């Protein structure tokens, strides 16, 4: 039976990761859970970059004692390295701001910090 759409599992996994992270950012109240949601979105984007560069039946792009065959694309893997380091830097600065907020307001609830309306 042939379906009208392609059943590619890695892209569905990427969509599920991003949707889980977005759910944690919108609907949760704890500050630490919102930070974890942002990290989940960033992991999903990294996985999407890597699954873009795969050819059917290819091996890793390394020449040392490699079995023959076509090789996967090396440029998306290099871009993913930079993206991981950017995620680490953003996470470090976000956690420092959370520590400062807790020391000032003495609570981690995101609806009590700020204006205080509604």
């Amino acid at each position, binding site marked *: 039976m042939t379906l009208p759409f*392609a059943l*590619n599992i890695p892209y569905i996994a990427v969509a599920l990761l991003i949707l889980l992270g977005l759910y944690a950012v919108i609907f949760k109240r704890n500050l630490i859970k919102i930070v974890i949601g942002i990290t989940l979105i960033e992991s999903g984007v990294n996985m999407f970059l890597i699954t873009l560069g795969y050819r059917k039946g290819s091996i890793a792009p390394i020449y040392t004692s490699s079995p023959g065959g076509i090789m996967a694309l090396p440029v998306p893997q290099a871009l993913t390295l930079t993206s991981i380091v950017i995620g680490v*830097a953003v996470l470090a600065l976000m956690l420092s701001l959370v520590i400062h907020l807790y020391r000032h307001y003495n609570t981690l609830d995101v609806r009590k910090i700020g204006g205080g309306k509604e």
Partner: protein
Amino acid sequence: MSKRELVGIVAFSIVAIFFVFTALMIHPFGSPPSDTNMDDYIIDNAQTETGANNAVTSVVFDYRGFDTLGEATILFTAVAGVILLFRRLKK
């Protein structure tokens, strides 16, 4: 509270439908639709031009060295920001 949650549910469901529809309608996993001229050139000539046996390292440090320079700047900025934010709390 309920008005904010309602707007959140509507926006989240629109984004969810868009993401799942895109994940099913994209090209099948393993056959990119466009031609790969740059990557074929890099795979064929990276061993003789740079002398490295690892194509990913030669892309990161030789063919695209400017991106690694920007990434080193990001690491330096993150460490400087963290040290700056915690300067008063140590005394």
